[in-house]
């Protein structure tokens, strides 16, 4: 098995999941992941391949996002909200779509660095890899993650109670 095969097999799933969570669009995530692997192919050698792959994928997203992030994220939100309201599928599906929309809003509420550190950690990167990929000092990763987790959970819960209040108003 060639090196690129191994890289792809080892990291494609976590990388695509990371990017999907980051971007809210699986197709886009897969495109970015492929571009990342193609760039890896051009590298002579990778010292820390996982940190390298996540860093390059993050940068690809960032370069693109610089141009049109706000509109795009807004569109993603609209799409999710539209699914949430207009589609009337089975209750479980609806619930999951609502949860996804809340989760999207909550993750978008984080600062970019906190969000990326958290998403990388969820894919199993250790602190030194996160520090390398995001150019943080290794000592600050714990603080970054603790802040990211707290804010994510807090804003998710706030959004959730907001929605429950709305539903209660609508019912009465």
């Amino acid at each position, binding site marked *: 098995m*060639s090196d*690129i*095969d191994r890289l*792809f097999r080892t990291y*494609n*799933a*976590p990388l*695509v*999941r990371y990017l*999907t*969570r980051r971007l*809210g*669009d*699986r*197709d*886009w995530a*897969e*495109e970015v992941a*492929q571009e990342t*692997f*193609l760039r890896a*192919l*051009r590298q002579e050698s990778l010292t820390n391949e996982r940190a390298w792959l996540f860093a390059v994928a993050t940068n*690809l997203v960032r*370069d*693109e996002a610089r141009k*049109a992030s706000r509109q*795009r994220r807004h*569109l993603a939100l609209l*799409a*999710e909200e539209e699914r949430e309201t207009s589609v009337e599928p089975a209750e479980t599906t609806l619930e*999951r*779509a609502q*949860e*996804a929309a*809340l*989760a*999207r809003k909550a*993750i978008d509420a984080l600062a970019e660095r906190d969000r990326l550190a958290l*998403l990388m*950690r*969820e*894919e*199993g*990167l*250790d*602190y030194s890899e996160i*520090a390398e990929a995001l150019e943080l000092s*290794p000592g*600050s*990763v*714990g*603080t*970054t*993650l*603790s802040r990211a*987790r*707290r804010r*994510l*959970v807090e804003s998710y819960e706030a959004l959730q109670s907001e929605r429950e209040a709305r539903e209660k108003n609508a019912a009465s």
Partner: protein
Amino acid sequence: MQHPDEGTIHAWIDGQLSPEQASEITAHVAGCAECAAMVAEARGLVAASTRILTALDDVPGGVIPGVPDIAPAPAQIARRRWYQRTELRAAAALLFVVGGSLLVTRRGVDMDATRAMIATTEKSPPAPTVGSDAAATSPAEATQRPMADAAATSSAVEAAPGAAEGSAVKPLGERELLRRSEAKSSAPAQADQSIQPKATFEAQSSRLQARGELRSLKQDAAKTQAADMVNVPPPVANAPPAGAAAQVDVPPRPTVATPVEGGSGSADRGVVGGRVIDKQSGQGVSGA
């Protein structure tokens, strides 16, 4: 010791502290109710974060309309210049053949003229990278191209006779020319090069295929096949070796692990006896 801060507690839960640091925290938390409460809260945050983020995996593709291409590598844009275009190269080659045939026809089978022509040809550089600017910048200059090229050209033309009407008019003159040029000029070198462009083409093609951007090239591909035998594109500077590239079997739409199957990274880490264990490796995850 002092109460650990929240970041340290998260690092401890994540198994990212050195063994010494970790055991210090373990000892402290055991005797400090305040910190034990913080640890419990932090564990809750870690688990809740993972759960919230898992909800993001339930996302279909194509949510965002008109996702632009990620900027293609500049090298791939620069690689194809206008004079490398297949049609232009084919046209230049054709012009050379027709012009050469006419020349021979007019002068009859003037041996001296033919020899003189071959001589001038041999003086001009053998053009190992035929795509050099001088090679095909204009049709007029193209007629000055080395005779060695004519050899490849004519053989390609014979393979596809319909493509070159000029050669059909005076096949004899051309063959005569060809035989002499093959005898006199460096035909072997040309033969080697005729293999290389195919490899380069395949390498490029597989790279681009992987990108799912082959569409535009595919249209050229049929034409290019014939023309590539004629024209040797310059070696691509930063293309990977053909073998390596050909092995990249990146499908246009790789199957992505479903959220359920893949789980999240955190799910691969279990907490055993206050220590975070990497389930995949079975090892305790030690500090950074």
